[in-house]
């Protein structure tokens, strides 16, 4: 294996054309976006709705009743959510018994894989912001909101702060200083529910991941 490594690198070094001309990388074309907050919100909403994502604009202190209504609409019996994050704690405090039961990702996947795959109806996660240009949500799954929360349950609810909608991914990388602080195990852009067009180019949603992606846009 080390032999392969040495051989490949040597071939590349020796074979590299001597005057390798590299044109300037001019990023202007992906950077010239001067959208106001309202424009960013609108674009985000329009883009994510174009791929079947749902957006509900709600006042920051009013999202829990909206969520409760949506849970009922989607006939959801249980909801997987964080244990420690502030919004999840707020929700737990306001919860009562007649509402769908609340679950948390307490154990490693292996300990409850069957249940997670077959019995969890929906999950609620936070996110690190949105992207207007592509209608994307930025997620950095962690120990409290592991990565399968946004993938395995059929419905995924996301809390997004309106003021955290950036223009482009490029802007996110710079403003949130991704390179400087280092990337997590897994980082994600999620732009709509899971979909496929592999059968005669007909769009179908929910092929491997969630069938519904519902964004609660907090203003």
């Amino acid at each position, binding site marked *: *294996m080390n032999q*392969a490594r040495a051989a490949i690198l040597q071939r590349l070094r020796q074979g590299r054309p001597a005057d390798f001309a590299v044109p300037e*990388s001019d*990023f202007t*074309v*992906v950077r010239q976006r001067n959208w106001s907050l309202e424009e960013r919100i609108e674009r985000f909403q329009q*883009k994510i709705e174009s791929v079947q994502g749902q957006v509900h604009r709600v006042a920051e202190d009013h999202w829990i009743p909206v969520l409760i209504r949506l849970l009922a609409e989607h006939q959801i019996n249980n909801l997987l959510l964080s244990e420690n994050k502030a919004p999840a704690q707020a929700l737990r405090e306001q919860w009562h018994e007649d509402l769908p039961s609340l679950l948390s990702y307490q154990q490693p996947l292996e300990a409850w894989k069957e249940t997670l795959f077959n019995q969890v109806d929906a999950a609620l996660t936070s996110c690190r912001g949105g992207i207007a240009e592509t209608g994307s949500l930025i997620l950095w799954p962690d120990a409290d909101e592991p990565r399968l929360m946004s993938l395995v349950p059929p419905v995924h609810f996301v809390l997004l702060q309106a003021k955290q909608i950036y223009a482009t991914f490029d802007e996110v990388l710079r403003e949130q200083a991704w*390179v400087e602080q280092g990337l997590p195990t897994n980082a994600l852009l999620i732009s709509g*529910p899971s979909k496929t067009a592999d*059968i005669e180019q007909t769009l179908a949603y929910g092929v491997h991941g969630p069938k519904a992606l519902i964004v609660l846009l907090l203003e």
Partner: protein
Amino acid sequence: MSLQTIPLHSFDAGAQAALNNPQVRRNFRQAMDGLMSKRAAAFADWELEPLRELGAAIRLRALARLPELLEQLEANLQKQGVQVHWAQTGEEACQIIRDICQARGAKSVIKGKSMVSEEMELNHFLEAAGIEALESDLGEYIVQLAEETPSHIIMPAIHKNTDEISQLLHEKTGTEPSHDVDYLTASARQQLREKFMTADVGISGVNFAVAETGTLCLVENEGNGRLTTSVPACHIAVTGIEKVIEKLEDVTPLLALLTRSATGQHITTYFNMVSAPRQADEKDGPEAVHLVLVDSGRSAIYQDEALLDTLRCIRCGACMNHCPVYTRIGGHAYGTTYPGPIGKILMPHLLGLEATQDLPSASTLCGACAEVCPVKIPIPRLLQRLRKEAVDGDSLRPSRVRGHGVKRHWRERLIWSVWRQIHARPRAYRWAGNLLTRLRGLMPKQLGGWTRVRTLPKPAARTLHQLMQTRDAQTKTAQEPRA
């Protein structure tokens, strides 16, 4: 199932068969028309030219520092706990993957979409070693059930229509026959979910490998890629060495180009960035992550400053969607892992020109591919270069592609050397011209494959020289003052 369903050199036969199959032609025509208009719409509000310039510049910048970036990528990944392996050939890569699986006692592997793994026929290799390898991308799953190969690099099952897929799923998995795509999709989801839960290893491809941060980026819509890289205890990513890019900021423009060029989407549902295995406090994700870097002919392409443009490719498939040849014959006629224009410029390097000699000529050089290529690969120019290599036809530049000169034939050489002699000597040229006009009645009607779809031009009764002489003589008489 053999990867090469038809012998490689019989591109002609494959193309003929496809042309005579109205179903194949209909399926492709429809799909490609749709993809072309979606791409155009997706770029409508973009300044496309500067964006393509940027895409090309990013890829070239990465290639200029390829060995250094590979080392940087490796160092960063290792620091983050990812094991990095190097393979000179596809077979070596297969062995590495098999060994990782066997060391874990793995019996089953679930796969996300990876063209490199198609290229090295990984599935057969693993199955021969007693390891079940199941494709999880819906298109790949369909193709695998049908015991076929992908006919398009982005949409593997594009050659099949709903009817055919419904029938296939019914026969192989017992799904009720149906025209309801949602139903068919849901039933595949159910079957594959079981497999995701039990698979020992997940194998994926890589779209971009970011050297600066040690990050493997995967682009997908279905979520099968995320499941593959998250659920099994071990994730093996496999990629060609050319997929590395320098910086994280290079991702935004390349991603914008890739998804729009491929399917006309402004972005795919998931952009999945993997930088490390599961950390001590984390509750899911693979405990082991491996990256297998495959050369398989790529470092040979790198030796030539013109040919290395081939390595810029980001595998979007736009060149296929816009190719008048691909649109008519579909992907299988090429008999190679990568079909269409990108296949024509890449496969000769991977397999040698002996096996792929017809590919560079199977083009009208219309230039549609180069016009849409998001990283501005001059595909027609590369095709011309490969045509020359196939006959060793460039006296100034020595050929270097494996199998070069395979199409060189004494008869063709003789014809061209006579042609050259004649055109270099005015007297010989006139003599040959006169001879041809006199023998014009004797011209054959058929001239092999050339006249199959063309009529042979017939020499005129008089040469241009003769016509000019007559004309000169006439004007002279006319101008002579009458006595």
